[in-house]
């Protein structure tokens, strides 16, 4: 399907294409969501102030809508899909302040409870956590590729395509199933080791 054809689609017909990550559909999002939002005076100011680029906005929107499946939250009851996405982008820009509590630490600015103790800060935002996990997985997978692409292929073939160790051994000309299992085990171990490293980098 071409971009011109996508332009003629209703929100209802466009929605499944966006869910599948079809490029012409997402190109329409670029021009009807990202471009207009980044030109809004308030958004442009905040983006400049907090170093957020239009590429960041598009990337995060794609990851959260497709990667995290948040498009499922769109009710498709006649409301504008592009308007809904624009509201999401505006919310993201507003929340992009890297230091939302100014010079003070999170603990220092927490509300106090009846005993005068700082109240617990809610760290367990499920949406945020899932997005983090998705991004971290890709970062760790990239590390795995850079270390040895064969490990990345083995991990991909076994976990995404459910190939047996025998099939992977035949495909990649690895000497035995045991050797495949060993490479797979190392790949998983490397992914686990990379996780805290990226977590620390933030």
């Amino acid at each position, binding site marked *: 399907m071409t971009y011109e054809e996508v332009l003629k689609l209703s929100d209802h017909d466009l929605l499944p294409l966006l869910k599948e990550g079809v490029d012409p559909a997402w190109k329409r999002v670029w021009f009807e969501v990202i471009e207009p939002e980044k030109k809004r005076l308030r958004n442009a100011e905040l983006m400049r102030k907090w170093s957020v680029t*239009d*590429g960041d906005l598009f990337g995060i929107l794609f990851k959260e809508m497709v990667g995290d499946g948040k498009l499922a939250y769109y009710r498709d009851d006649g409301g504008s899909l592009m308007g809904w996405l624009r509201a999401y982008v505006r919310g993201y820009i507003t929340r992009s302040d890297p230091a939302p509590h100014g010079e003070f630490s999170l603990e220092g600015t927490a509300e106090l409870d009846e005993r005068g103790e700082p109240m617990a800060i809610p760290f367990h935002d499920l949406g945020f956590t899932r997005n983090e996990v998705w991004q971290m997985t890709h970062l760790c997978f*990239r590390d795995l590729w850079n270390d040895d*692409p064969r490990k990345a292929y083995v991990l*991909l073939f076994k976990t*995404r395509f459910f190939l047996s160790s025998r099939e992977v051994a035949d495909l990649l000309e690895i000497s035995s199933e045991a050797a495949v299992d060993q490479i797979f085990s190392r790949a998983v171990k490397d992914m686990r080791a990379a996780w805290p490293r990226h977590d620390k980098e933030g």
Partner: protein
Amino acid sequence: MRCPDKDFMVEFRSMLGKDPSRRWLVRLVFPAKRGTGGNLPFYVTNWEDDPIPSGVFHLMGGQWTVSEGLGSIPCAAFIAGIHETAVWFQFPDGEHVPGGLTFG
């Protein structure tokens, strides 16, 4: 190399850049039961999922010419370059755009 009984494909994508015209996607196919003597076909498309007419795909330490969005890698070359990390797509104007294997 001996491929499994079912077809499957892996995807390589360009890094997300600002210029959408420089985005590329390569789908590398592992045809069912393909043996060492054969080739692994791949398809190169752009942002709009249209074939990129020409270019050069750099993978597994080799350079694979693309014609009408299609190319192929000999199975033997795939195995020989299994440890090579560089992944690029070179557009006809000479620009190299890096990319990588996607986890899905």
